């Protein structure tokens, strides 16, 4: 990788920064999530911040916009030191964050939303006429077709996103921070949004632009700052980087010995074949298959639709499938029960919210899913339940101080093992695991990787959804990358690298040159 030196020293010709962060750090207790970030934001520039999930982008944005207070470092605006203890102070200083999620009251009108908490009034009554007029101006500025008196809940998502941006523009701003503004937008809407951003730049506003989509960054940004694992890698002029190089800078680390050695390529007939699965009324579609003895990884950015696709397969969301076959037998309809009976189980990514009954003991959790298989009769067999608990604790190495402990009292790693043990009670031939090691420590991680390896070597098929690239690369025999609700790339063998996954997940995918070069 040959790159120009990072552009950290401000050039002589560059305009004075409107906002400067000096060695900014943030720690929650002993855990540092962001350390030593030094950043210049100049008026009239689009400054892109890129990094993997968890690289610290959101934290940085929250610090700059007063939503969180730094634990180290300093900020200055136009040379004068500033410190914000809340978002209102930052907004008063001219810095506003436009959130990724839509934070609007759906039952209020556009104008009411824009002026929420700062309504204009005349005597004792709100002055709707003045607010509607001002709203119309701002909406025109962002090119939104919505009218001031439209109820926000009636607007399509893209228009709501524009309303949210319009709200940020209501007062004069020096710095606007856009957090993944295009995550919810369709293609032509994205183009319109990019024009709005260019328009803001022309007006001298500094725009901080956070995005996963590298082609947008390439098309829009003047400078690019790369974050990785909470640390700043550097700032470059956007003209010096192509999408490929951005992806490499975002990843930039090596595989550890955390992962079991890869297996021989699987050749058996697929254990699970899914054809033309359509989820959420067409927003997400996909076909895939997985063979016995194979780990199929599904990669992609958060929000690409991976979890939704599998939840659709399991009938947990509105979905339709062209065909589902498990070990050669057709399954008529998506559904947890039907697929479990055929031999497919799914471990949710949300173990506390959707996976385990936190107030119940080990037994009720372990037998909940496969209850009819473990216990065919109407009456519960308590001896059998106790035996299931004992063997699960032994086989999955769930560390407990007593067998009557509640699931909520276990550590994250032990909860994850309990969840794994729970779905394995159904004796599946295909195991689909969503984020197998989210939020658990390294020792438990490596144990879970070895469980997965053991399952696959025993002839089961495994699908792993992971947002952690090293994990995806380290575990998978084959990787499908999802982007915008579609599979956009399939990687096998030596092509399974973090760079290739990021590239496929984040770029437009038109430039196939980059993939071959790796």
């Amino acid at each position, binding site marked *: 990788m040959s790159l120009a030196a990072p552009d950290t020293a401000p050039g002589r010709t560059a305009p004075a920064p409107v906002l400067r962060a000096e060695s900014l750090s943030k720690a929650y207790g002993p855990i540092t999530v962001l350390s030593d970030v030094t950043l210049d934001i100049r008026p009239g520039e689009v400054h892109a911040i890129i990094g993997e999930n968890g690289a610290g982008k959101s934290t940085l944005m929250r610090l700059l916009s007063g939503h969180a207070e730094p634990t180290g470092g300093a900020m200055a605006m136009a040379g004068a030191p500033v410190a914000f203890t809340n978002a209102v102070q930052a907004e008063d200083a001219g810095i506003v964050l436009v959130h990724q999620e839509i934070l609007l009251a759906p039952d209020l009108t556009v104008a009411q939303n824009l002026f929420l908490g700062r309504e204009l009034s005349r005597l004792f009554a709100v002055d709707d006429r003045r607010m509607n007029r001002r709203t119309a101006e701002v909406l025109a500025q962002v090119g939104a077709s919505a009218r001031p008196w439209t109820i926000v809940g009636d607007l399509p998502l893209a228009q709501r996103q524009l309303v949210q941006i319009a709200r940020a523009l209501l007062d004069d701003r020096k710095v606007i921070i856009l957090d993944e503004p295009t995550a919810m937008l369709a293609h032509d809407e994205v183009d319109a949004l990019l024009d709005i951003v260019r328009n803001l730049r022309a007006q001298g506003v500094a725009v901080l632009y956070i995005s996963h989509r590298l082609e947008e960054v390439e098309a829009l940004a003047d400078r690019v700052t790369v974050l990785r694992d909470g640390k700043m890698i550097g700032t470059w002029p956007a003209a010096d980087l192509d999408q490929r190089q951005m992806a490499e800078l975002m990843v930039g680390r090596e595989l550890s010995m955390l992962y079991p050695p890869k297996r021989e390529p699987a050749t058996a007939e697929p254990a699970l074949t899914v054809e033309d699965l359509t989820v959420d009324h067409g927003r997400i579609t996909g076909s895939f298959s997985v063979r016995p003895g194979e780990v199929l990884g599904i990669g992609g950015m958060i929000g690409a639709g991976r979890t939704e696709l599998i939840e659709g397969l399991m009938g*947990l969301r509105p979905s339709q499938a062209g065909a589902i076959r498990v070990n050669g037998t057709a399954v008529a309809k998506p559904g*947890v029960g039907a697929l479990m009976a055929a031999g497919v189980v799914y471990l949710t990514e949300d173990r506390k*919210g959707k996976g385990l*009954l936190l107030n119940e003991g080990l037994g009720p959790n372990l037998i909940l*899913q496969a*209850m009819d298989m473990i216990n065919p009769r109407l009456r519960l067999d308590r001896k059998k339940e106790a035996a299931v608990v*004992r063997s699960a604790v032994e086989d999955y190495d769930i560390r407990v101080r007593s067998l*009557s402990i509640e699931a909520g009292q276990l550590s994250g790693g032990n909860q994850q093992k309990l969840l794994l043990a729970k779905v394995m009670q159904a004796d599946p031939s295909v195991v689909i695991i969503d984020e197998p090691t989210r939020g658990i420590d390294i020792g438990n991680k490596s144990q879970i990787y070895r469980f997965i390896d053991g399952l696959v070597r025993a002839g089961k098929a495994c699908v792993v959804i992971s947002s952690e690239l090293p994990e995806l690369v380290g575990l998978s025999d084959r990787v499908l990358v999802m982007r915008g609700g579609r599979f956009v790339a399939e990687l096998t063998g030596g092509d399974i690298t973090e760079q290739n996954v990021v590239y496929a997940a984040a770029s437009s995918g038109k430039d196939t040159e980059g993939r071959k070069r790796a």
Partner: protein
Amino acid sequence: MSSAEIATLPESEGFRIRWGDLAPFIALGVIILLGTMINSNFMSANNMLNVITRSAFIAIIGVGATFVIATGGLDLSIGSMLAFVVGIMIMAMNALAPSLGPWAIPVGALVALVVGSLCGLMNGLIVTVGRIEPFIVTLGTMGIFRALITYMTDGGSLSIDRSLRAAYRPLYFGDFLGVPYPVIITLVIALLGAFILYRTKYGRRVTAVGSNADVARFSGVHVGGVRTMAFVIQGFCVAVAAICYVPRLGAATPTTGQLWELQVITAVVIGGTLLRGGKAHIWGTVAGALILEVIANVMVLSDMVSEYLVAAVQGAIIIIAMLAHRFTSSR
């Protein structure tokens, strides 16, 4: 963990008294003690049996309500449903009496059980298929059942045929080896409820749905089916209570069962069942029903507090019970 290590693990975390679970029984004991001190007649076998018998209705309906509440639901229609089922049963028995004679009673009771279960099924299906809050659904059916019984009685009362009274009367006033029939029926229903809730797969699914419906759904549990079934159990229990109720007064009126839903929910909640679902105590509900009736009885027997204030004291009890629960569980 190795099997050797597991073998040494304690099966439970030692002998630890769960005060929260025992609270309703302790409270019942304290109130009985108070009653004994206030009036010597209180402890007489006669008075005691009387009180227990009268609490049977709330206890029987409460067993069903425990199921509904354990799944995270709520049924406000039970008082009106009772009146409606009583009305239908009396009409059925009266219509059958000329042809069947005393056999009209068991056939009428069977009709009541079917009608009660269907009423519960209706509540359950509207809640689950229609995806409407149980509070709203049962608020609606509460009004419907109440209006229907008022219509059926024509605003007055609907009495059971004279020819049936003698044969039917013992069901409420009779006893077996000294134990009144309503008490035996309550025990049978509570035992059955406890068996279903604690010892069957369905019961396990009830608590799973109540403690986290998403977890249940992701585990392949038919959440709607489990919820609907709880409403059916509730309707069945209401019908059983109706069968015991008719011989007591022999008639249905527009005020039959009025405000019973509040008493039942109070009994369930002070019995230790969580209103948000997930934790259910059948025997706690029975104790809760007894507490309500004993308090009323103590107040009637004592001269200190007017019996007009019974509802106020019962209302205070539910608040105190919840505060006590908050206090014991936050430690």
